[in-house]
């Protein structure tokens, strides 16, 4: 299992803050994005549209970053704090 978290605009668009996913074998952020984008039109639009950042275990990640069972993955827009 992995836990996938969504923040800000993504959480509102999907109406979903977290999702538990079965993970049969290790994957990558890029492959997980493609898998999520295939869940439906709103998912596809989200990942195909404006920039989406990812974190694995609370560290910024890119498409090549590996994901293993037990990891916490998050997707969110570019930061706008401060």
């Amino acid at each position, binding site marked *: 299992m992995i836990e996938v*978290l969504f923040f800000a605009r993504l959480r509102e668009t999907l109406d979903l803050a977290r999702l538990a996913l079965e993970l049969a074998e290790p994957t990558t952020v890029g492959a997980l994005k493609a898998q999520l984008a295939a869940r439906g039109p709103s998912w596809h639009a989200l990942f195909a549209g404006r920039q989406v950042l990812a974190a694995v275990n*609370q560290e910024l990640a890119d498409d090549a970053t590996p994901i293993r069972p037990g990891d916490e993955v998050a997707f969110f*827009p570019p930061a706008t704090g401060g």
Partner: protein
Amino acid sequence: MTDDVRILTTALDPAALTAELVNDRAHSQGALVTFVGMVRDLTNNPVTAMQLEHYPGMTEKSLTAIIGRARVRWPLGQVLIAHRVGLLHPGEPIVFVGVTGSHRREAFAACEFLMDYLKTEAPFWKKEFTPEGERWVEAKQSDDEAAKRWRAARQQQQ
């Protein structure tokens, strides 16, 4: 020499945070630089309120990592970063960065560095409320460029 990162759900008091650094006699330094960011309060500003969301856990890790990178560049004393989350109104402080050091130059530079990286790397998101409705604030390219400037300066030094 300590790193202090605080995520606040209630009012941020810049004077009280500054006093903590001034009164920290155990780590007394020659310079203290502070920065306070506030929700803009302009007469033609249609924003009536702002919601600050963050990623609990990653926020603290990310801010601590940014402080670590500042310490590699400059000899610093205390670093205190406090950031509001939740509902804010125009004129309210959102963020406080306080840095002490032996001399003003490193304290000024580190304070600016910390803010530039906080804006682009720490997982906070602002949503604005206006009479026309609500909207997520878009990231600014000028903020990205401000953070990149430090990387370029570092490469020139090396």
